[in-house]
C-alpha cells in the first residue's frame, strides 16, 4: 500500500474525513536531529536577542515626539517622558520600529499566503518543490521551524506559524502590552526572522510552480529601462509584487503569439518575477519610475497586484485614460468587482472610459482580457496622444511662471533644488533638471506645495526627455537560491577570506543621491572580488548604468556564487535566499545542524561569515524587516541616510572593551576580541562614508590570517580612497603580522610601533606585543555559552 498525503474518505464512512499528513521515510527521519527551538514562540530566542542587544545597544531617533496609538493620547513623550499608559519614548520608539518591521513581514507573508492558496489551487498541494540542485531546499524554514518541506503543501503549516507569530507580535503593540524597549527589540528581531520565512515560502513556491530559474548562475539577461520600451506598440504595464495574475497574461500571450505585438513591461518586483517566468517581458525600472512612467502616458493598460504601487493610481491614470485592472484584494481602489462579468462587457466599459478600472479576481479572465484590451486601447490612446508632459511651449511657460518661492524644495523629501533648476530651464538650460531627474524619486510631493500649481514632476520629466531616451539597461533575471554545489565550492573562500566578503545590495530606490550610487558601489566591490548579491529595486538600478564599452555590470560579471560575481536573486521575496546562503554555508561548509537550530546558526554566521547587507535606498517597511531578519541571523546591515528615519539602529561601541568578549567553544574560555562586526545596524551619510564601512563590516572574529589580510587591505584602501586617510582603527583588527597586507607590511609595522606603541621584532618582522589577542587557527568563536564544550555539565 502506497500512502500519500491528502484527504481521504473510507468506504462506508463517508462522513469521516481522514487527512494523511506528511509521509515520513525512515532514513529521512534520522538525517539531522531537531534543534532546541523548532517554530519558536516570541520568547524562545530571546536569550540570543539579549546577547545581540547587549553588544549592539539600540539607539532611537524619534521622527515624532508624540504617540498617537490610542485615544488616551496623543501623548507627548519628548525627553523620554511617559505617555498616559506609562510607556516611555524609548519603549514607544522600539514599539514603532517593531510595528513597521512587522508590517514588512506581513506584506511578504500576506503575499506568500495569497500565492500559496493560488498555486495549491492551480497545481495541487502535492506539487513538488524544485529550487535547483540543492538538498537543503528551504534553509530558512528548516532553521526556524525545523521543517523540511518537499511539496508546496508542506508550506501551509509554515505560513500558519508565520501568521500566528505576526498576530502575537501585532498584539503587543496594543496599549498596555510590552513596556520594555529591549523586549520590543527582541520582538522586532522575531518579526524580522519570521519575515525571512515568509519570503522564502513565497519565492520557493513560485520558483517551483512557475518554472523560474532555479539556482541558475547564467539566468537570462533582459532589457530594462524606459528607453527600451517600444511605445509604438500597445504597452501593457504591470506593477507590484505578486505574479499570480500576470502569469495568465503571459501564458495567453505565448499561446496567441502576442509577444511581438504587445510590449509587456513591468515596474517593481512584478518585473523581476515576470522576467523570471518569461524573459520576453521587459523591465521599466524601479519604484521611482512608477509615477514618471505613468505620467509619460505611454502605458495603454495597467495591471496592479500588490505592494509598492502608487496609492494615487486611479487619480493619475484616469486623467490619462489608462484603464487599470486590480487583481488582488489588498489593493482595490474602490473599484467595482467585475470577476463574474463577461469579458467583452468589461472591455467595453474600460475602453469607453465608463469605468476607469475594475477588480478582476478571475485570473483566466485577466489573462485573456488584458492583451485584448491593451490592443484595443493602444490605437485610441496613441491617436489622442495622452500624456501629462507639457509641450515645448507649455514647458517654457511653466518654467517661467515659477517664482522661485522654494515651497517645492521644502516639500521635497530629497530637498532637491527645483527652484534653481526652474530658473535655469527658463533660461533654456536643462542640465540642472537632467541631473535632478536621477535624484528625483518621482513622489510628486513638490506638486502639492507649489502655489503656482506647476506640475513640477512633469516639468522635470519633460526637461529630461533626452536622458530618459538613453535609459537602457540590462538585468540578469532573478536566479533564485544559491545552490548547494556552489556553496561547497565557494564556502571555503568565503570563510578563509580569499573572497573578502558578501555585500548584499537590496531594497528600494530612496537613495540619498540618485541611483548611480548603487551601480558604483557594486562595481567597486566587484572589482575587489567581493561577491555582490542584489535583489528588488536595487538590482534594477544596478543594471541601468554602463561602462565605456556600453556594458552593464550584469554583462561584465558572472552570476554565480563566486568571488567577483554579481548575483541577482530576484524580487523582494528572494531576499530570503541571501540569509539562506549564510545558513547553507554553516550547514554545508561547517556541517552545522540547522534543523530548528536558529541560535547556533546565527552565532556561526555572526562570528564567521563576512556578509553585510546594504539597504542604501531602503524606505519601505519590507526593507526594514528584511534587514532586521538579517540582524537576528547575525548579519550586519547598513542603511542609507533616510534609514535613520526607521527610528532605531544597532550601532556598536568599539571603545567599550567589555562588549567584545566572546567564548571559545572548545573550552568555554572568554576572549576579548576586536569589534567585528562593529555594528549590527547603522546608517551612512553618503557613498564615500559607506565604502570603507562595508569593508569593515566584513571582519569577523573567525577570520584566519589570509582572510583578515585581504579584508584589511580593502578596508584600508577604501578608507584612503574615500576618506583620504588610513582609518584610525585599522590596527585593532591586527592580531599578528600575518594579518597585515604583504605589500604594506613593513610600513604598517612601523605605524604600529610608532603610533600605537606596539613592540616589533624587526629582524623577523614579527609583532611581539600590541594586539589584543593572538590568532589561533582553531579558535571557535561563539556568543552562546551552551555551545561550549562542557556547558551544562
Amino acid at each position: 500500500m502506497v500512502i500519500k498525503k491528502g484527504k481521504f474518505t473510507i468506504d462506508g464512512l463517508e462522513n469521516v474525513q481522514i487527512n494523511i499528513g506528511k509521509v515520513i521515510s525512515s532514513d529521512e527521519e534520522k538525517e539531522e536531529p531537531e534543534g532546541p527551538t523548532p517554530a519558536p514562540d516570541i520568547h524562545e530566542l530571546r536569550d540570543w536577542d539579549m546577547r545581540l542587544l547587549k553588544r549592539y545597544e539600540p539607539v532611537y531617533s524619534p521622527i515624532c515626539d508624540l504617540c498617537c496609538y490610542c485615544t488616551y493620547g496623543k501623548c507627548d513623550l519628548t525627553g523620554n517622558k511617559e505617555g498616559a499608559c506609562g510607556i516611555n519614548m524609548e519603549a514607544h520608539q522600539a514599539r514603532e520600529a517593531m510595528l513597521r518591521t512587522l508590517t514588512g513581514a506581513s506584506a511578504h507573508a500576506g503575499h506568500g499566503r495569497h500565492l500559496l492558496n493560488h498555486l495549491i489551487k492551480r497545481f495541487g498541494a502535492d506539487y513538488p518543490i524544485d529550487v535547483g540542485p540543492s538538498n537543503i531546499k528551504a534553509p530558512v524554514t528548516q532553521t526556524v521551524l525545523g521543517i523540511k518541506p518537499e511539496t508546496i503543501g508542506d508550506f501551509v503549516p509554515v505560513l500558519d506559524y508565520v501568521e500566528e507569530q505576526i498576530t502575537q507580535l501585532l498584539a503587543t503593540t496594543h496599549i498596555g502590552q510590552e513596556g520594555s524597549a529591549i523586549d520590543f527589540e527582541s520582538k522586532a528581531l522575531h518579526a524580522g526572522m519570521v519575515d525571512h520565512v515568509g519570503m522564502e515560502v513565497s519565492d520557493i513556491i513560485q520558483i517551483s510552480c512557475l518554472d523560474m530559474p532555479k539556482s541558475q548562475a547564467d539566468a537570462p539577461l533582459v532589457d530594462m529601462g524606459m528607453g527600451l520600451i517600444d511605445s509604438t506598440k500597445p504597452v501593457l504595464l504591470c506593477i507590484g509584487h505578486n505574479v499570480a495574475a500576470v502569469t495568465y497574461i503571459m501564458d495567453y500571450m505565448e499561446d496567441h503569439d502576442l509577444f511581438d505585438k504587445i510590449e509587456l513591461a513591468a515596474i517593481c518586483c512584478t518585473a523581476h518575477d515576470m522576467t523570471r517566468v518569461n524573459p520576453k517581458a521587459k523591465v521599466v525600472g524601479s519604484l521611482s519610475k512608477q509615477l514618471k512612467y505613468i505620467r509619460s502616458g505611454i502605458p495603454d493598460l495597467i495591471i496592479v497586484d500588490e505592494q509598492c504601487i502608487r496609492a494615487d493610481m486611479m487619480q493619475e491614470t484616469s486623467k490619462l485614460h489608462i484603464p487599470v485592472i486590480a487583481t488582488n484584494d489588498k489593493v482595490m481602489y474602490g473599484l467595482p468587482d467585475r470577476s463574474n462579468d463577461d469579458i467583452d462587457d468589461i472591455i467595453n466599459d474600460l475602453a469607453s472610459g465608463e469605468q476607469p478600472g475594475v477588480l478582476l479576481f478571475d485570473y483566466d479572465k485577466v489573462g485573456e482580457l488584458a492583451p485584448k484590451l491593451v490592443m484595443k486601447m493602444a490605437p485610441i490612446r496613441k491617436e489622442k496622444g495622452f500624456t501629462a508632459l507639457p509641450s515645448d511651449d507649455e514647458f517654457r511657460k511653466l518654467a517661467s511662471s515659477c517664482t522661485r518661492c522654494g515651497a517645492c524644495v521644502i516639500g521635497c523629501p530629497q530637498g532637491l533644488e527645483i527652484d534653481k533648476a526652474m530658473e535655469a530651464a527658463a533660461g533654456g538650460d536643462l542640465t540642472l533638471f537632467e541631473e535632478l531627474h536621477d535624484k528625483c524619486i518621482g513622489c510628486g510631493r513638490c506638486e502639492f506645495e507649489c502655489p503656482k500649481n506647476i506640475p513640477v514632476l512633469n516639468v522635470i520629466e519633460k526637461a529630461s526627455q533626452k536622458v530618459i531616451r538613453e535609459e537602457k539597461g540590462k538585468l540578469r533575471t532573478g536566479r533564485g537560491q544559491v545552490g548547494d554545489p556552489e556553496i561547497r565550492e565557494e564556502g571555503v573562500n568565503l570563510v578563509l577570506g580569499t573572497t573578502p566578503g558578501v555585500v548584499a545590495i537590496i531594497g528600494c530606490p530612496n537613495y540619498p543621491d540618485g541611483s548611480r550610487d548603487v551601480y558604483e558601489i557594486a562595481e567597486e566591490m566587484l572589482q575587489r572580488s567581493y561577491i555582490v548579491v542584489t535583489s528588488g529595486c536595487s538590482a534594477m538600478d544596478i543594471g541601468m548604468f554602463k561602462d565605456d564599452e556600453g556594458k552593464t555590470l550584469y554583462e561584465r560579471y558572472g552570476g554565480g556564487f563566486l568571488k567577483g560575481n554579481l548575483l541577482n536573486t530576484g524580487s523582494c521575496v528572494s531576499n530570503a535566499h541571501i540569509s539562506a546562503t549564510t545558513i547553507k554555508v554553516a550547514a554545508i561548509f561547517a556541517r552545522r545542524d540547522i534543523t530548528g537550530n536558529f541560535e547556533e546558526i546565527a552565532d556561526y554566521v555572526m562570528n564567521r561569515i563576512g556578509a553585510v547587507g546594504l539597504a542604501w535606498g531602503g524606505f519601505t517597511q519590507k526593507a526594514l524587516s528584511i534587514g532586521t531578519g538579517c540582524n537576528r541571523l547575525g548579519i550586519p546591515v547598513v542603511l542609507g541616510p533616510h534609514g535613520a528615519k526607521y527610528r532605531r539602529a544597532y550601532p556598536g561601541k568599539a571603545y567599550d572593551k567589555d562588549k567584545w568578549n566572546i567564548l571559545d567553544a572548545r573550552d568555554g574560555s572568554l576572549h576579548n576580541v576586536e569589534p567585528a562586526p562593529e555594528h549590527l545596524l547603522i546608517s551612512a551619510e553618503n557613498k564615500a562614508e559607506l565604502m570603507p564601512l562595508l569593508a569593515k563590516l566584513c571582519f569577523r572574529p573567525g577570520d584566519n590570517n589570509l582572510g583578515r589580510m585581504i579584508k584589511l587591505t580593502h578596508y584600508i584602501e577604501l578608507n584612503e580612497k574615500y576618506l583620504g586617510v588610513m582609518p584610525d582603527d585599522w590596527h585593532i583588527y591586527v592580531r599578528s603580522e600575518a594579518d597585515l597586507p604583504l605589500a604594506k607590511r613593513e610600513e604598517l609595522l612601523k605605524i604600529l610601533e610608532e603610533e600605537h606603541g606596539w613592540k616589533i621584532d624587526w629582524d623577523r618582522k614579527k609583532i611581539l606585543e600590541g594586539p589584543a589577542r593572538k590568532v589561533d587557527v582553531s579558535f571557535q568563536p561563539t556568543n552562546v555559552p551552551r555551545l561550549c564544550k562542557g556547558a551544562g555539565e
Partner: protein
Amino acid sequence: MASKELDTTRNAVPFDKANIPGPKMAKAVKAEVAGKFISKAKRPLLIVGTAAGDDGVIEIVRTMAGKGIPVAATGSSLKRLNEEGIDATYVNLHALVSYLQDSDWKGFDGKGGYDTTIFLGHTYYYASQLMSTLKNFTKIKVISIDRHYHPNAGQSFGNLKPEDFIRALDVVVAQL
C-alpha cells in the same frame, strides 16, 4: 557689524515641511546668542557633516577648531578637512550619538563626554534624526548653526539665504 540687519531667527520652519516633531522645537536664535552660547560650553564638540563643502563654512570650521573646539568629522567630511589641514576625528554620526548617550564614554580625547554639540554642514534630514536622539535621550545641548531650521536642536537658526548664512557664522565665531 552687519548683525543689525541680520536676523537669524526668521523663517524658523522646518526645512522639510513635514518635519514637525512635537511640542518641543528648537528656539530660533540670533547669531550672537549662538556664539555666546557656544563660548560658554565647557566641553563643546563641533560636528561637521559632508555638506560642509563651501569655502566659507570650512573657514569657520578652521576658526572654531583653532579656538580649541574639537571637531568630529562625520560622513565623508574628513577628507576635505584633512586637505584643509584641519584636525578632526572621523566618526559615523549614528555611532557618535550612541557614544554621546553613553555616560561612560570618555570622548575622543579620553577626557570625558561633551556637554554641547554644534552641528554644521549636514544632510538636513539625516542630522535632524540624530539630533532627535540627543534631544530625547540626553542632557547634551544641541545647537545647529546650519543654514536651515532644525526643530530637533535646542537652538537653531531659521532658514537662511546662503549669503546670510556665512554672515551669521562670522558673527558666531566672533563671539568665541
